[in-house]
């Protein structure tokens, strides 16, 4: 049975923060095509601020996620503050009492995050948002687990689902957010939020795999 230790594992979150930082310009460029071109700046600002509060404090994975979520909620605003803030907050709530985190714990956490997000943001699958990355990612992850794959293998599926979901936003017409105003003109471009969500999920997957243990 594969698992990761929750305690002293803030490095997973720091890797996510680092990935967003590295891709920030790319994310803004994508947002520029159909939105206002600030998605990378918005994300990097919040994530970097959280980094300062996480580094050197020897936190658990879930506590680090909590700080990331809180920082986004309290200090960032925009739409990314509440959206990712809510997702990370739910993940924290789902994992905070778990010592050894297994595949099903992660699945529940992601599911809770998605539900809270849908409730808050009022977006549905197909609206061309980060939900279109999360939904297929969670689905392929869930099927992989159900089919008896290892945690690591299932995480690969999570990454594959996220990638596919993200890629599919290219052919969608935006129904929500700034890009919705473009109507047909929004077709042909990736969604910025779907892209950042894919980066986050894939980085998380590989970071978890990097500290995987089994018993």
């Amino acid at each position, binding site marked *: 049975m594969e698992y990761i230790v929750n305690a002293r594992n803030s490095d997973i979150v720091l890797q996510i923060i680092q990935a967003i930082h590295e891709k920030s310009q790319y994310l*803004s460029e994508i947002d*520029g095509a159909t939105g*206002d*071109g*600030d998605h990378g*700046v*918005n994300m990097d*600002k919040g994530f970097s601020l959280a980094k300062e509060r996480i580094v050197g404090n020897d936190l658990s994975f879930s506590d680090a996620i909590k700080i990331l979520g809180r920082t986004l*909620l*309290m*200090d*960032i*605003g*925009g*739409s*990314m*503050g*509440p*959206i990712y803030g*809510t997702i990370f907050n739910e993940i924290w709530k789902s994992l905070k009492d778990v010592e050894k985190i297994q595949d099903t714990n992660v699945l529940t956490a992601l599911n809770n995050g998605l539900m809270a997000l849908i409730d*808050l*943001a*009022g977006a549905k699958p197909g609206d061309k948002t980060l939900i279109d990355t999360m939904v297929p990612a969670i689905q392929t992850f869930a099927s992989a687990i159900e089919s008896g794959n290892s945690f690591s293998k299932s995480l690969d599926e999570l990454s594959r689902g996220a990638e596919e979901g993200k890629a599919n936003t290219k052919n969608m017409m935006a129904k*929500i*957010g*700034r890009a*919705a*105003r*473009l109507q047909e*003109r929004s077709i042909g471009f990736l969604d910025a939020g779907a892209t950042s969500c894919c980066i986050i999920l894939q980085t998380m997957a590989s970071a978890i795999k990097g500290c995987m243990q089994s018993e």
Partner: protein
Amino acid sequence: MQRIINDPSLVVEDMLKGFVMVHKDIIHVHLKNPRVIISNAAKNQKKVGIVTGGGSGHKPAFIGYAGKNMVDAVAVGEIFSSPTANSFYDAIVEVEQGMGVACLYGNYAGDNMNVKMASMMAKDDNITVKTVVANDDVASAKKEDSEKRRGVAGEILMWKVGGAKAATGASLDEVIDAAQKAIDNTRSVGVGLGPCTIPANGKPNFSIKEGTMEFGIGHHGEPGIRIDKLASAKEIAKEMYNLIINDLPFQSEDEVVVLISGLGATPLMEQYILFNEIENLLNADNIKIFKAYVGNYFTSLEMNGITLTIMKLDDELKECIRMEVESVGLIQIGE
């Protein structure tokens, strides 16, 4: 980027310091949250609290409308980006006086989410928050999807009406109803002739070709309905007017408020010229101007362009529009 600023990522902080100092007779900053601006008049009177908030870069909106008989507290976001739920929450708590709080804001994804979260936090403190979401921008979605439309300069009239109603001592429901009626009877449309640059980005994120204009542009440069050849003020006025007038629709004998706002770089001269054309069109349709506002009331940094807003009045709305107001962005002396 030709700007007089320091660190581009700290423009809002730096600006707020100046704003608070210059206008200390009208507003002050929240003791603990530098992103909340409070009207000095907010606590002089037991009444429903009026809160708003939004991204920065729209000066004098939003903070310029904190003041007597207008907004009591304003949550301040980054440039073109919603304030945090936390700031909305602090604003709400600050102006609650036992009669509840009306949060009157514009229809943007971030604001919707942050206000929703702030309202939930306030509910835990037993504060009742009700909201009105401005959606006056006709060009931002079809009439069938009017709940998707954005809030633009019409928000000012929503605040004016909500603020005035609250000042009469009305209940939260009455204030909400009046503000909702205000925005339901208000329509706006913008034209863009030149882009603006978010300081942290450093370059314009859209462009408008010389000799053309973006008809129906959004408040942050969101693309409009179509790109037109740049026409005369008379022709532009006609296009804007028709879109608005047919949407509500407005009718002969209606009395209206007309609000024309420059988007930043457009000289007042052009705004008055456009107003003159709108007045001619209203006259021809026998619609009467009860009150007119022309100026840089709701801008988008240094965007070149103008928004037109028209609001249809009834007796209650007229009384609210008439009421004196003392804010940075709008001073109206009682009669």
